């Protein structure tokens, strides 16, 4: 039997942290075996799905995403849809049309993005399992900022049916939880072939779990990271060595191209995916029908897309234009192939590639508002590479800065080798003493 008292406190919790866009009206858990939330870009029959965007306000999908259906099928009760950057466009969850989730360790700071609401829910609510979605770092970044565990399986491991696309070749559905053992348990529930998403149909069985014996650290892994992150990461490496894990340093020269390549591919795909939102069929639809169709679509899109969505649509439209496509889009795909090759080469010799998860701890909202878009994009410098390569990766908490803000480190394994990440996170949890945030409602 699960603890149901949390259901009656959801509104109060949300008032304080703003992690949910929608909350269940259920007050009893009934026969449910566990409670879970889903990021607001996954369709759910009984709740609105807006992907953090005003343009989709009021959209009630008539079907469940495969990931949600499988969690329900395993006995899960969906308690809410978590807040996020509009369509996943952000690193700090400050680009949502429906409020900004507050970091449980300091409400003046970000939860990370774009699955910020998911990480916040996992950090604040005991035993909670949150489904997140990562395109360029949207699970590991918020997991790191909120001091919890997060896993992104291999691209194609979990069906994307019912996911409102950001970048089709990049989007991956994963899990965020305060408990390391939840990563393997719930990824296994969501994973598996689904004919509705052909990219999920080539996957091999989930590999056997195996102990982490060796990690490789890219030579430039700590270049440009804050002193607090560097120290926590160094301590983490020493702890791993004391556990008998071999640590090696490697050259991975292609990683420095990951961020521009990622943003070119992601915005190219996003700009075409978002073409469907035009004031017909989904969300806001009451417009001036006397307008010509081009003007009608333009008026909706201009009124309801947020600033970051417009910026990324412009960027992606430009990088696909005749005359620029080879320089940007085709080149970015070449870089992706080089990065995959480089990871594979390193992972032939060791179990995982290890870096800090984020270059700094969660920043204050007052500092985020001063960042340029490019500075914000560059914050994905460490989470971008495994995402563009479709490699499974996990963030585990590894320390706290002088203000008590959490720091994470990121393990990247070879495609389809999630088993080593599940084991590594569970082993790490036995050694690392987490400091849970103080939650008062």
């Amino acid at each position: 039997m699960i603890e149901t008292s949390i259901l009656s406190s959801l509104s109060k919790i949300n008032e304080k942290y703003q992690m949910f866009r929608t909350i269940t009206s259920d007050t009893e858990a009934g026969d449910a075996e566990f409670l879970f939330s889903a990021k607001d870009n996954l369709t759910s029959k009984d709740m609105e799905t807006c992907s953090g965007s005003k343009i989709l306000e009021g959209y009630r999908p008539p079907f469940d995403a495969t990931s949600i259906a499988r969690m329900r099928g395993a006995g899960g009760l969906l308690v809410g849809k978590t807040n996020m950057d509009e369509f996943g466009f952000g690193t700090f969850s400050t680009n949502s049309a429906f409020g900004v989730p507050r970091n449980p360790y300091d409400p003046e700071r970000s939860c990370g993005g774009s699955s910020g609401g998911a990480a916040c829910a996992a950090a604040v609510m005991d035993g909670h399992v949150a489904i997140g979605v990562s395109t360029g770092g949207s699970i590991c970044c918020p997991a790191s900022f909120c001091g919890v565990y997060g896993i992104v399986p291999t691209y194609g491991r979990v069906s994307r049916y019912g996911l409102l696309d950001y970048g089709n070749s990049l989007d991956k559905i994963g899990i965020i939880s305060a408990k390391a053992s939840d990563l393997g348990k719930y990824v296994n529930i969501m994973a598996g072939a689904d004919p509705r998403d052909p990219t999920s149909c080539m996957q091999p069985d989930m590999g056997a779990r195996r102990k982490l014996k060796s990690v490789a650290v890219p030579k430039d892994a700590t270049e440009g990271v804050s002193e607090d992150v560097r120290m926590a990461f160094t301590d983490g490496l020493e702890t791993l060595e004391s556990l008998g894990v071999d640590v090696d340093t490697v050259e991975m020269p292609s990683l420095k191209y990951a961020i521009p390549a990622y943003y070119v591919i992601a915005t190219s795909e996003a700009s075409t995916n978002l073409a469907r939102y035009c004031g017909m069929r989904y969300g806001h639809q009451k417009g001036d029908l006397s307008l010509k169709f081009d003007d009608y679509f333009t008026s909706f899109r201009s009124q309801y897309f947020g600033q970051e969505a417009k910026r990324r649509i412009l960027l992606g439209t430009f990088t696909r234009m005749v005359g620029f496509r080879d320089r940007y889009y085709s080149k970015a795909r070449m870089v992706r192939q080089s990065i995959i090759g480089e990871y594979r080469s390193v992972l032939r010799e060791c179990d995982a590639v290890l870096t800090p998860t984020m270059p700094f701890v969660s920043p204050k909202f007052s500092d985020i508002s001063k960042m340029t878009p490019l500075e914000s994009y560059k914050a994905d410098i460490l989470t971008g590479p495994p995402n563009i390569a479709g490699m499974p990766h996990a963030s585990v908490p590894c320390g706290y800065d002088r203000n008590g803000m959490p720091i994470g480190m990121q393990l990247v394994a070879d495609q389809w080798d999630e088993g080593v990440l599940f084991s590594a996170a569970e082993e790490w949890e036995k050694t690392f003493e987490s400091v849970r945030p103080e939650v008062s409602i």
Partner: protein
Amino acid sequence: MDRETVEKVARSAHLKLTEEELETFSRDLSDILGYFALLDEAPDCENFGIDPIDVADVLRDDEPHMEIDPDKLLEGMDTYNNYVRGPRLL
């Protein structure tokens, strides 16, 4: 990216930008594309695809079936006599 180019791209993307947005996006996109020039020095490679993993076509039996009740789909749409309402074409 100059304002004229931003305006041209926006038109292609069905976006009408305010003067302030034109100014802001022109500055932001110039900054971002300047950084993207890093891609010029990345080595070329062959055999690159669309997805990061191997993907094959998945075909279903050619049998009619109904995945979602069309009436349910229409419930969320602005309709007239079961047609989705839209703007005029001419």
